[in-house]
């Protein structure tokens, strides 16, 4: 077996304890938080039947109303998660949390991908330019990183809305697509689905709607990428193999690929880390642009104290992020042969 295969298998096995730890953390943090969640949801003056009903729904008491001990609650919770049961919403028809997540997830994934692309293209290109050229270009990129990193998403989002939607009237203020143009559901990603079904009017509409939110999200995250890309390109440029490659007559356009590949590990680590930030960024971006994704959804359910939905969503995110880290680690090993221990 090649060393890469061994690494991938070992890394896959490591996901199990990681996810177990994450979901346990969410469970216990929810339990040690002060205050009675049931009272928080229904209020002090709620009728006792309603309180009991909620306690049952939350898995705090059994059918006859006796409290379930914490270890049993924990095991029930794990068993349910294992079956893919994230619980049911406490409000509006008590739908399964997973179903609701799946309804809102594609919108967030679409925005996250678009925002991530913007940030990588902007960040890595500018960072590489700065690290490669040095001098004044480098200083300009430094300033760009500092400014974009410090931007507050709702503010820059509103500025874009003001400029492009209100004054220039070239792009919509918010939303995901013009009403009635939603493409048939295949993946849930409007841009992709409209291409797959050949609905060009839907595609144009979805594209026009995604430009401002993805630019907002991408711009803020690009600051971090340009910073990491700049410092790691700078560092690689100082290494002997760069001058050795030049001494072999390797042209600059080929050399930049060698340098980027060597500089990529720190950039990729940052990408993995930024995915977490992307989620919080997505919440702010989504609420600014009324984007119907996980961010808007989570924000709304926190307001309504939809306890099970919030817990289920957090667990879901924890699992997603540990899976992203898994992919990043495997990519490391693929790019850098020295990591395959």
């Amino acid at each position: 077996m090649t060393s890469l295969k061994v690494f991938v298998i070992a890394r896959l096995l490591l996901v199990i304890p990681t996810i177990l730890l994450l979901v346990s953390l969410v469970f216990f943090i929810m339990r040690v938080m002060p205050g009675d969640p049931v009272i928080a949801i229904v209020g002090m003056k709620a009728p006792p039947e309603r309180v009991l009903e909620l306690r049952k729904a939350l898995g705090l008491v059994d059918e006859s109303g006796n409290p379930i001990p914490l270890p049993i609650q924990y095991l029930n919770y794990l068993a349910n998660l294992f079956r893919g049961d994230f619980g049911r919403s406490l409000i509006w028809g008590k739908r399964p949390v997973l179903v609701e997540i799946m309804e809102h997830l594609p919108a967030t994934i679409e925005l996250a991908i678009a925002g991530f692309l913007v940030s990588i293209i902007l960040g890595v290109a500018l960072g590489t330019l700065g690290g490669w050229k040095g001098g004044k270009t480098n200083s300009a990129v430094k300033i760009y990183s500092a400014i974009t990193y410090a931007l507050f998403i709702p503010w820059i989002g509103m500025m874009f809305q003001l400029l492009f939607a209100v004054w220039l009237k070239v792009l919509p203020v918010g939303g995901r697509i013009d009403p009635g143009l939603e493409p048939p559901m295949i993946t849930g990603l409007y841009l992709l689905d409209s291409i797959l079904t050949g609905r060009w009017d839907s595609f144009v509409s979805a594209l026009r709607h995604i430009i401002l939110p993805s630019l907002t999200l991408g711009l803020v995250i690009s600051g971090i990428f340009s910073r990491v890309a700049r410092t790691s390109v700078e560092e690689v440029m100082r290494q002997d193999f760069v001058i050795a490659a030049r001494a072999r007559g390797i042209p600059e356009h080929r050399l930049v690929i060698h340098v980027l590949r060597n500089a990529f590990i720190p950039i990729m680590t940052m990408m993995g880390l930024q995915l977490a930030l992307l989620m919080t960024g997505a919440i702010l971006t989504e609420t600014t642009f009324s984007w119907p994704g996980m961010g808007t959804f989570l924000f709304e359910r926190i307001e309504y104290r939809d306890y099970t939905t919030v817990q289920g969503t957090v667990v879901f995110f924890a699992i997603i992020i540990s899976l992203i880290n898994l992919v990043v680690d495997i990519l490391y090993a693929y790019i850098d042969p020295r990591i395959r221990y």
Partner: protein
Amino acid sequence: MEEILKMRNLKAYYFTREGVIRAVDNVSLSISRGELLGLVGESGSGKSSLGLSIVRLIPPPGRIVDGEIIFRKMDLLKLPEKELRNIRGKHIGMIFQDPLTSLDPLRKIGDQLIETIIVHTRVNKEEAKEIALRALERVGIAPDRFDDYPHQLSGGMRQRVMIAMATMLNPDLLIADEPTTALDVIVQSRIMDLLSDLKRSMKMAILLITHDLALVIERSDRVAVMYAGELCEVGSSEKVSQEPLHPYTQLLLESIPNVEKPRTKLIYIPGSPPDMMNPPAGCRFWPRCPKVMNMCKSIPPRPLELDGRMVRCHLYNGGLESGG
């Protein structure tokens, strides 16, 4: 013998914030086909800067200020970057001190060899692989190493790969900057054997840059001694080792420990190399020179032709001002 490279009055300075470092100052040196020229000097004497200047790769804030470098009838300093790039790696090969960091750690050595061949010639990938394998064979690396990454090879093997890469396109000149410093003595001797073989079989000129005078005396045809950015003596290894002219060369030779004469005191050169930003007035070596005269402290010595050699020292113009 045909002169393959001729440097005339080459000046390469580093323009730092603190001041100008004259790393290479008025150096004239030539090297012929099939000749191994050893360039010796202490750390910071400017020998590596000289090597990098030849292919115009002196890193910023360094810059070549003046002079000419004639290589195969072309002035390398006047050549456009694109043409120069074609000379680097094809007509002038270069190897460096640390063979681990001189290879891209993320790419298989075979791919790095192939890339170099492809940018310089019109062969396809298959033919390039054949050339690369032949070059590896010539330096004693087995073909099954072709798909290895640099970290999977030993230091000596990596330097062999570097040599294969620098010589596979039959360059006229190989610049070897401290090629054996990072290696142990036995590997060092094998690498030097390999360089001598290449010199003979391919009629290649080799510029061996090192701080190791003993190695140069043993291996090279001619020796150039560099001190504080200037050449102080150039001559055949035989003459320089038997009858060194410049006091610095004399001290360097005396300070080589001799195993056959045990229990002799280790001889060293007192003082330290000059501050290159403010070198001493007159001869740059005078503060450390045992034969210092009054005029040395104010008048810089000119290079003198003497007995087929070059020496830059007032001792040899009868103490008279100016000369050659």
